[in-house]
Structure formats: C-alpha cells, structure tokens
C-alpha cells in the first residue's frame, strides 16, 4: 500500500508541479510558490510563435486522424471479411510498425523523403504521423469489427440490403463509438508526437517542437503553460475515447445479457 502510494506520488508529482507553476505569479520555476496568476497564459497566447505551433499541431492531427479513420476502417473492414488464412498474417503486417522505435521510424522516413527528393513540410509530418498512428487505429478497429455478430450483417443482406447499405445501416451504427474513440486517440497520438516529428519537420513548428525549442533557450513558466495545455488536450481526448468505448461496451453487454438471461431463466 505504501509502495503504491509512493509510486503514484513519484508518477504524478512532477506533472502536478508543472501544472501548478503554469499558474505561478512570478517567473520563478521553483518553490516557494508565491501566488496564482494567469499572466503566463496571457503571455503564451499572445506569442505568434505559440499560436502557429498550436495551429500546425491541430491541423496535422486533424488530417492524420481523418486519414486514419478512412483508411484504417477500410483496411480493418476488408480484413475482417477476408479469408481466415489471410487474416492473421495481414493483420500482423498492419500491426507490426507499432513495435518499431520512433527514432528508427523517424530516421528511415527522413532517408526515404530525401531519396525521393520530397521537401520536408507539413505533409511529411502528416505522412510520418500517419505511419505512426495507423497501427493503433487498425488494432482497435479490428477488435471492434471482429466482435461484431456476423449474423447481423447476414440478416441485413437477407432482408434485401446491398453490401453498401449493410455497412451504412448495420455495421457502422454498431462500431462507430469504437471508431470515434480510435479517431480521438489518433488525434492525441499525433498531437503530442515528438521524436518522429523531430526528424521530418521542415521550417515549421508543432506544439511539442515549440516546447523543445523553448527549453533550449530561456526557461520561463510559459513552458509550463504549453506543457499543461498539451497535457490537458491529450487527456481530454483520451477521456473522450474512454467515454466512447464505455458506451460501446455497455451496449454490447446489454445485448448479450438479455438472450442469455432468457435462455437460462
């Protein structure tokens, strides 16, 4: 019990300190804490450099999560409908990049872009993030589609629905909460990605890059502000994802219950 508490304190105290000092009234980054103020927030938001980084991160995360939603759903759906013998090896191929170190992905993409003479820009960051995020999305989407009762789709097609209609009217309504959760996670993963971004980014900046560049120059509490914001946005997205997953799980449990209860009544 004590060990657990110590571990928790060890984990969360640094985060708490960062958040606390983002509200600090003075420029000091260490105790004693002399009072609350939003001045560092004001200062941060008034910085053009910060606003650009925030906008860039949002734009990249938005395009990456949208692209992942479309491509990931298609890949997962296609795979869940393919022959069982093909399924496992293909799923492994889609999923394997998750095990690659970010450093490796960053360097290899950089070499790749250089070879193809592609200028580093937003697009290269977006492509890199897509490579990084896709396996996570794919894994979650596959799990959701695999758990779907195939009889539901069969019933729909038996009732006259074409494959497209089946997907729209039966498959999507079942899996959208999970896909939404996975999209939120994709956004979060892209939003705070640093290592791969570091290699493939051009002249622009993202939020994590902004923090990094600030750290190398003067250290002032606005770093705490940006870190807190980054953390808050990421946390909010994970929470959103969690709500969607809970929603999906509850619906499924309810469905499974009724028939079993009845069958064993």
């Amino acid at each position, binding site marked *: 019990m004590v060990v657990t508490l110590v571990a928790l304190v060890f984990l969360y105290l640094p985060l708490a300190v960062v958040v606390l000092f983002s509200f600090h009234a003075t420029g000091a980054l260490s105790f004693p804490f002399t009072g609350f103020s939003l001045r560092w927030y004001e200062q941060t938001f008034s910085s053009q450099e910060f606003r650009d980084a925030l906008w860039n991160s949002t734009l990249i995360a938005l395009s990456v999560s949208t692209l992942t939603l479309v491509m990931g759903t298609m890949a997962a759906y296609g795979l869940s409908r393919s022959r069982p013998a093909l399924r496992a090896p293909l799923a492994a191929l889609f999923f394997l990049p998750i095990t690659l170190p970010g450093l490796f992905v960053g360097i290899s993409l950089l070499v790749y872009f250089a070879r193809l003479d592609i200028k580093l820009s937003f697009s290269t960051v977006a492509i890199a993030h897509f490579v990084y995020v896709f396996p996570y999305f794919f894994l979650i989407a596959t799990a959701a589609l695999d758990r779907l009762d195939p009889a539901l789709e069969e*019933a729909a097609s038996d009732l006259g629905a074409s494959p497209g209609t089946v997907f729209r009217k039966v498959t999507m309504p079942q899996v959208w909460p999970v896909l939404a959760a996975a999209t939120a996670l994709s956004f979060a993963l892209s939003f705070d990605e640093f290592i791969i971004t570091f290699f493939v980014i051009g002249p622009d900046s993202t939020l994590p890059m902004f923090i990094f560049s600030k750290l190398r120059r003067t250290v002032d509490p606005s770093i705490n502000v940006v870190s807190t914001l980054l953390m808050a946005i990421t946390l909010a997205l994970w929470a959103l994802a969690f709500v969607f997953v809970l929603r999906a799980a509850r619906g499924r449990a309810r469905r499974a219950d009724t*028939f079993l209860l*009845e*069958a064993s009544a």
Partner: protein
Amino acid sequence: MSAQARLSLEGVTHRFGKVTALDSVNLAIEEGELVTLLGPSGCGKTTLLRIIAGFVLPTEGRVVVEGQDVTGVPPHKRPVNMVFQRAALFPHLDVRANIAFGLQVAGIRGTEADERIAEALRLVRLEGFEQRRAHELSGGQMQRVALARALVNRPRVLLLDEPLSALDLKIRLEMEVELRRLHRETGATFVYVTHDQREALALSDRIVVFDQGRIEQIGAPNEIYHEPASPFAARFVGDANVIAAEVVSIESGTAVVTVGEHQLTVPCGSNIAVGDAWLVLRPEVVRLSTPSGGGFSGIVLDAAFRGTGHSYRVKVDGLADPVKAEMAAEHGGPFGVGDTVSVLWASSACRVIPRGGDGRPAAPSLERLGGVG
C-alpha cells in the same frame, strides 16, 4: 410433377476442402408446406439452409425458386427470408424499425409499409412493442420480432435456422404453438432446420432426415416415426432400439426373424430379403414384467421416473446393446436397478429394415448420435 415446386434443390453438393458437407441433395418443396431438415449437428442441414439463403455458394447443383435458378444470386436479391438461431435483431433499432428494415430497403414506405408492419406485429402478437429495443425483450419475444421482420417481406420461402434452440423448454413449447399458428394463418412456405426430433415431429408437414450430408429419409412425421427407412432414422427419430436380426424366411408381408435365441414373426416391406437385417423396436412398445413372463430375460441397468411412468435401460441376454423401454405406470412396475425382468413386445409393433447395402456404415454408432445438441 404438374405444378411447379416452390423451392427445389437439384443435386446440391457442398465441400469444405476435402470434407463433403452435402452430397447431391435433391428436394422439392411445395407451396405452403412446412418442411423440417432434421439431423444431428454437422449433418449439413444448416449449410443447406445457408445455401438456400445465398450465404453459401454450393460446390455443385442448383437452387430453384419457382422455376427460377437463383444459385448465383446474392442473398439480398433472393425472394427468401431467414429467421436466425439467435434472432439477430439490430440492436440499434427498435422493434418497429427492425420490422421495417426490409420494406425500407425495398423502397416500400407510407401507408402500405405502416399496414404491413401493423399486420406483422399483429401476427406475432406484439402490438404495443413498437418502441422497444432488442435488449428490452425476452428471448421468445425477440424470436417473434425476427419472425415478423422476415414475414413482413412476404418471402416466397421462409427459412428458420433452429429458431427455438436458444430458448428454454417452456418458452420453446409456447413458441411451437405460435409457429404452427403462424404457418396456418400465413400459408407461407417454411423450411425449418432443427436437431430436435420432437420439434420436427410436432411442427412438420414433412420431415427430411439428414445424416452426414445426405438425405436419409423424407416423409410425413408419422411415416418417419413408424416406418423409419434406416437405422439412423430409427434411432434419431424416436430413439428406437435397433437390434441386429436375421431374416429366416419371408411370406406375404411377414418375416420370420431370429433375434438372439428367439424367433419372431414381424411385418415387413418388399425391400426385405433373407439374411442380415435390423429390427426396429420403439421403446414405448417394450414391456417389462416379473421373470417367468416369457420373452427375453434381462437385468435393469437404469430406471428413471418420467411422471406418467418410467424409462428403463435393460441388459438383455443375447443382445449387444441395452434395450430402452418407456413404460406407463398402468403396464406394471416400477422395477429397480438390478431387478431381473422378462422383456416382451408385440411382434406386430416391430419393423424390419435392411442392413447396409449402400456401402455406408450400416448402423450409426451411438457415439456419433451422442454428439447431438
């Protein structure tokens, strides 16, 4: 055949890799019939139903609905509808939207849709349940919604895949009554898959007994029950005793057979020849009595109370398998395990069926039948 069959299967064969799930099945189903496909798990009956629905493309053969070959037609373009084993209601839609699904996809809207949905709900006696979701229904109600959802499309053939097997006994019996009423009131053509012989006997106009991907026998329930064509049909339908016997002589519809050390005179068909045969004996015609009653002598292995009487398993001298007996209380007993008894039956209640002949294992092993369910 003068009239065109509602549904006919012509030489339908299906192989999964090297396993033959269905072996050239030929079957014609007439308009308004309720036909059950009966057999143990893995006999191919569900595969056949899925072939009719279009979910499985047969390796060979044709599926013909009212003269139209639909073998290659995808499920959503076939004029048949299916009721699934576990209802498969759309969980995100309420009862009404579930029933409306087929009509909506077909572009039927407005008053016609409303009327047909109301009629379907009335038919399955679920008026007032329109707004319920699947998880707010009991298992029996779910299956009734599934029936309404299929019937509202007025399918040329209604396919039912063990629709009652996930329900408990009491609701199953109620649903059987409902299904018979639905069939009477709609006059629709039903193809009903089940592994429950009792259900098949209770519901069907005709039963198709399946074993190992082949049709063993087609006939009315009483015909299948009383005149089983094979040891498998005899054992599977009605749990009959199938006893090795030898036909000694045949004379004008009766045969003299040797069973163990006894000789019996039993009725027989024209397909019986002198030599090895099977004697089929329904458990309910077997009588036990205190020894000295003549007949076979045996020892009771097991006795179970059945309300109106007892069921027994008796080891009989000279016979390989124990004999099953169902005896009403008024016919004597009860006997206890270990009792020595005389085993008797009316010879006229037996049937003789030929042994082997088609190259298949002549008698199904009890182990294989044990896998039923």
